[in-house]
């Protein structure tokens, strides 16, 4: 069966760092504790400059935007896994960026929280927050229904099976790299 993710997008530009994704004052929340995991989600992207608007409506736990579209170097800065986790906990299923910082990309795969797609073109200048898109996993493409246009994505490659499995532990067990 072909896999797709569909929904509204939230658009940001370059160098969105981990302090903007989840500011340091919320890092006392421990992601492996369920209630604190949910709280992290409610603070996702709260450090963004005000011009972007609200990613999560204050008082809500989840975002209405399951897909983030970004420019270069998304997730740069700290190694805090709180960043992909806050996004995942808020309901984000995928980010489509031109490029990623290394640790953020790695943490997406390790946790299995969300899919870090890379776009070929710079979508963040063309797309607007609130538009509807569909990401097709087998075709490696994103369709913007508001613009009625299809764009190519780079293959997820070796990280897709890891995230499909639910992160490195699940993957390591599936493939026999660790027992149990």
């Amino acid at each position, binding site marked *: 069966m072909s896999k797709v993710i569909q929904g509204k997008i939230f658009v940001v530009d370059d*160098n969105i*760092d981990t*302090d*903007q994704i989840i*500011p*340091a*004052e919320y*890092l*006392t*929340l*421990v*992601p*492996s*504790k369920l209630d604190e995991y949910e709280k992290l989600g409610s603070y996702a992207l709260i*450090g*963004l*400059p005000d011009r972007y608007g609200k990613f999560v409506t204050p008082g809500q736990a989840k975002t209405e935007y399951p897909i983030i579209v970004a420019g*270069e*170097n998304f997730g*740069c*800065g*700290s*190694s*805090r*896994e*709180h960043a*992909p986790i806050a996004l995942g906990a808020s309901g984000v299923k995928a980010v489509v960026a031109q*490029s*990623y*910082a*290394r*640790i953020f990309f*790695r*943490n997406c795969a*390790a*946790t299995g929280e969300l899919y870090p797609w890379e776009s070929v073109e710079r979508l963040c200048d063309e797309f607007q927050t609130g538009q509807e898109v569909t990401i097709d996993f087998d075709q490696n493409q994103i369709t913007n229904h508001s613009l009625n246009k299809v764009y190519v994505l780079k293959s997820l490659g*070796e990280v897709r099976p890891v995230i499909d499995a639910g*992160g*490195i*532990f699940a993957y*390591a067990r599936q493939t026999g*790299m*660790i027992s149990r």
Partner: protein
Amino acid sequence: MGMTLTEKILAKAAGRSVVEPGENIWVNVDVLMTHDVCGPGTIGVFKREFGADAKVWDSEKIVLIPDHYIFTADERANRNVDILRDFAQEQSIKYFYDITDRANFKANPDYKGVCHIALAQEGHTRPGEVLFGTDSHTCNAGAFGQFATGIGNTDAGFIMGTGKLLIKVPATMRFVLNGEMPDYLLAKDLILQIIGDISVAGATYRTMEFAGEAVQRMTMEERMTLCNMAIEAGGKNGTIAPDETTYEYVRARTDKPFESFYTDSDANFYSDRTYDVSQLEPVVAKPHSPDNRALARECRDVKIDRVYIGSCTGGKTTDFINAARILKGHQVKVPTYIVPATQKVYEDLFTYKHEGQTLSEIFLNSGCIEPAAPSCAACLGGPKDTFGRMNKPEVCVSTTNRNFPGRMGEKTAQIYLASPYTAAASALTGYVTDPREFLG
């Protein structure tokens, strides 16, 4: 074909004779470091995946360093240190640098402070080894000729249980720093220069290897400043070939044997850049990105509200000696925060003398705020009551490493990253200031 220092360390850790950039390999881990912000989550992952009664792979290879949110009334922050303590006891972790009396850090002889500097000072950074830490500035330890990089909680939880991690071998970008360092330049200027040249994503997925005579003449603390900020260019790790300076530092702190590796003359580099440091000038990174470089003298009209000297990048003993050189005999014009990275650095402020006065006397005589308890403090904002936190939309010159919006607290605050010289000179004028105005 030869190999780089990083490739050789990774080959050894993978039990192989050769590795190539881009390969995914399993490596054996020599040291896993975690702190109060990511430790509890790492422990949570470890228990969830390996079971409540599981034992860590090696209780002498895990180093637990509370350092981020220590001197705060925030209950959850305090609880997180308690989680580390319980775990250290349960698992008989040999290296846990605990703090129980937050009212008086000096009453906690085990407490160190900022993890990256504590790792070095306690002898946990050794040539040829593989160090992972749940903190992006773990690359600091590359200064010792080891492979050191930051990871997330899930990867760290995996290491806790298995002692191994699957990683991709990075290609190496070499930066050869030649020439005589002018006496107004510091390692911080060099790394800000390089990041400005290659951008905050210029080294993504790669190793930054620093070489050349200017690097060879640097102290370990200055070398750490270079490697510390490799992550600000997106680098996976930074490295410097070990030499006598390295061995002297390491042997004074540990008798554990280690093996040194060096880049071959016919190794392959992703890129190779050469700088003549004698031609460079003091620089700053303007808000809101570490690659937004400008000459310090070009920012002379930027009025500032405070100066912050601290963190793993700019809160080491050498950094305070350098600041003191500028401040001695003058008065600061803006509140100036002195935050030693570790308890050892704090002690040095009261014992190390510059021209007959201790560093702390120089700071107090010039009107700085009394040196704070060692920790990360306002480098990353933190809970609202954190010492030195930016709570207003003010302008700060800081010896720290990041100036993204909100990094030091308030998201509209403006941070200029600078060397300890430039930070101290700016404190004396109330504007961003080239230290040559006060040197020589």
